[in-house]
């Protein structure tokens, strides 16, 4: 009998605890004043998209070093803690929560849209702003209901703007009347770009074909496209496949201009396609190291000194993101995550290496895209396409 009573005792006390379980524990944010401004760099340092994440982390590190060397902002130094998402969405969500509970004032990253969207609920729950340098998907900063996601910002332009800019470029600069689309339908990136381009292009879309990330042979689909009559081939996808598409298309005798998004912006593109094939190829970029902007040349030389290579656009966007945060923090009396969020909204005419911009109502930067023309694998021409 004594044993039975013992069990009943446990059961009864557990029942009371069960009743109490609706009382959620309340997490304390880092609302108290600290001596440093804590930046959490949540990036893909390993896994399939490590190239983007690592590059962005380099950009962030460089900016933080520069800011601290100049004495910090408002007398406070920036302190960077980096976290590796392993290119996994759930990991990004967990790390965002972790960074917030460890006292981060602002989260910078992740590089990809999926990871940024996975981390967004964590950022919102902890009331810490998240600024992604390169999450381009439209829905990153806008919820299903059309409301802006309150704690998420980005430094890059969004996919639909890019699609529209490229469509305008095809209309006005290339004078194209008939276009074909060969897009990556396994990523939201490719799908979103194809939709935006189709919506904006004034001419006729003669054909729309798809491929999947990881494909290497495009001869079947390119043969069917070669029979069509068109003025421009639009390839919304990443450089891994685009490089091969350019090579196989050119070898097949498709000599129309090829147009692509910022996913073309990697030196691997020319290697995969072969320099002789990369002529009459255009892509939209966030940033160019050419030009006469003194900020840009300073950034490029500082980056080369630190890392021994030329910065790519991911590094440039990440670099801008940190300065953007610094710009927001500058006017603040009290540095809390909420105050930084409010200040980010108010940022106006921020001058970065990827352009001068302010945020619109949906936390997207209003800035121009640069369409780069490649000839024999070299960047020869830059056309600025303004946002409308």
């Amino acid at each position, binding site marked *: 009998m004594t044993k039975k009573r013992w*069990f009943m005792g446990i*059961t009864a006390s557990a029942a009371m605890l069960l009743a109490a379980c609706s009382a959620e524990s309340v997490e304390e944010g880092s609302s108290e004043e600290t001596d440093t401004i804590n930046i959490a760099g949540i990036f893909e340092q390993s896994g399939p998209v490590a190239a983007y994440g690592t590059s962005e982390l380099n950009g962030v590190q460089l900016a933080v070093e520069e800011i601290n060397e100049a004495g910090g902002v408002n007398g406070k130094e920036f302190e960077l803690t980096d976290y590796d998402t392993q290119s996994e969405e*759930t990991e990004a969500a967990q790390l965002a929560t972790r960074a917030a509970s460890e006292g981060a004032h602002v989260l910078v990253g992740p590089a990809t849209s999926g990871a940024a969207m996975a981390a967004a609920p964590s950022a919102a729950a902890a009331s810490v702003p998240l600024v992604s340098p390169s999450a381009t998907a439209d829905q990153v900063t806008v919820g299903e209901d059309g409301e802006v996601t309150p704690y998420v910002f980005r430094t890059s332009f969004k996919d639909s703007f890019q699609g529209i800019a490229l469509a305008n470029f095809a209309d006005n600069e290339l004078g194209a009347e008939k276009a074909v689309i060969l897009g990556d339908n396994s990523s939201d990136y490719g799908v979103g770009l194809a939709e935006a381009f189709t919506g904006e292009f004034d001419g006729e879309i003669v054909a729309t074909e798809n491929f999947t990330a990881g494909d290497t042979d495009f001869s079947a689909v390119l043969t069917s496209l070669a029979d069509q009559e068109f003025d421009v081939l639009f390839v919304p996808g990443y450089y891994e496949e685009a490089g091969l598409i350019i090579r196989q298309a050119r070898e097949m005798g498709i000599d129309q201009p090829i147009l692509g998004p910022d996913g073309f912006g990697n030196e691997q593109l020319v290697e995969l396609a072969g320099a002789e094939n990369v002529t009459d190829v255009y892509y939209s970029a966030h940033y160019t190291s050419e030009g006469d902007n003194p900020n840009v040349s300073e950034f490029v030389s500082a980056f080369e000194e630190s890392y021994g290579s030329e910065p790519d656009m991911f590094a440039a966007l990440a670099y801008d993101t940190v300065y953007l945060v610094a710009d927001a923090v500058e006017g603040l009396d009290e540095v809390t995550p909420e105050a930084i969020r409010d200040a980010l909204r108010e940022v106006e005419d921020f001058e970065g290496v990827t352009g001068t911009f302010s945020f619109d109502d949906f936390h997207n930067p209003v800035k121009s895209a640069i369409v780069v023309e490649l000839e024999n694998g070299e960047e020869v021409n830059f056309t600025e396409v303004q946002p409308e």
Partner: protein
Amino acid sequence: MSKRMKTILVWVGAAILGFALIQIAILTGWITRYYEMTLMLILINIMLAVGLNLIVGISGQLSLGHAGFMAIGAYTTGIVTKMMPNLGGFALGILGGVVLSGIVAYIVGIPTLRLKGDYLAIATLGVGEIIRITILNLDITNGARGLSGIPKLATWYYAYIVALLIILVAANYVNSSPGRATISVREDEIAAESLGINTKKYKMIAFMIGTMTAAVAGSFHATYYQLIVPSQFDFVRSIDILIMVVLGGMGSLTGSIFAAVFLGLLNHFLADYGAFRVILYAIALILVMIFKPSGLFGRKEIKASKLFNWKKKEASRS
């Protein structure tokens, strides 16, 4: 008090004690929100590993498509809860996912469960990919963009209770008459058949229960992380679950639970080591496989009933 009653009470007591300890730890702030996410990940992994162990460990059929069935549950719940953002929708989503997953498992089970060994592994791998590619190309699932903005309905205590229920179902199945028949299929299919056991039927039952629990785990995944994209349910995810089953011991439910907890904690505490974590994780797996090739628990279980047997033995000795 009968031994059966005692066993049940020990189980209930342990379950409630575990619940109480976690709840106390959360209320006192020991478990922060970050730890809570790890806890949730572990609970979801327990559901997946126990379900897969029924297929791989108990019925002896190597399945590499578990993540596909998880995706069915995740997407069903994601779609339903976006239309009905309340607990009713959550329950309906889980139910819908389980039913749909069961139907798909039945349809693909008829041809694939006739295969053995490597051939079955390849066939189930194909099934998992077919499910993922189908989701990638459907409109209702929003293709490659995935579903975002799923209401956050899953909490750790629902997951805890559901994980317990799944363990309960699995443990009772193993000890039931059909469960014994399933084990006999694993041990020797020809011998089992010669004894009049309908081997296809029992393989199918284990396969369906396993895939249905995967759908439940998927439902929790969707409503906890609030974002699902097809790439989360790829082949690698299936392998992750299989690793837990093999590490814990194929055929040991206790082993699967232990492995899910162990790997979850390992992943959590190695998070600070960045890329190095992947190496440590792999080394841990290799060491276990070298020194204990049958997995940490082999086919052994921790059973409450053994506790009383042991006491009896002690008593009879003195």
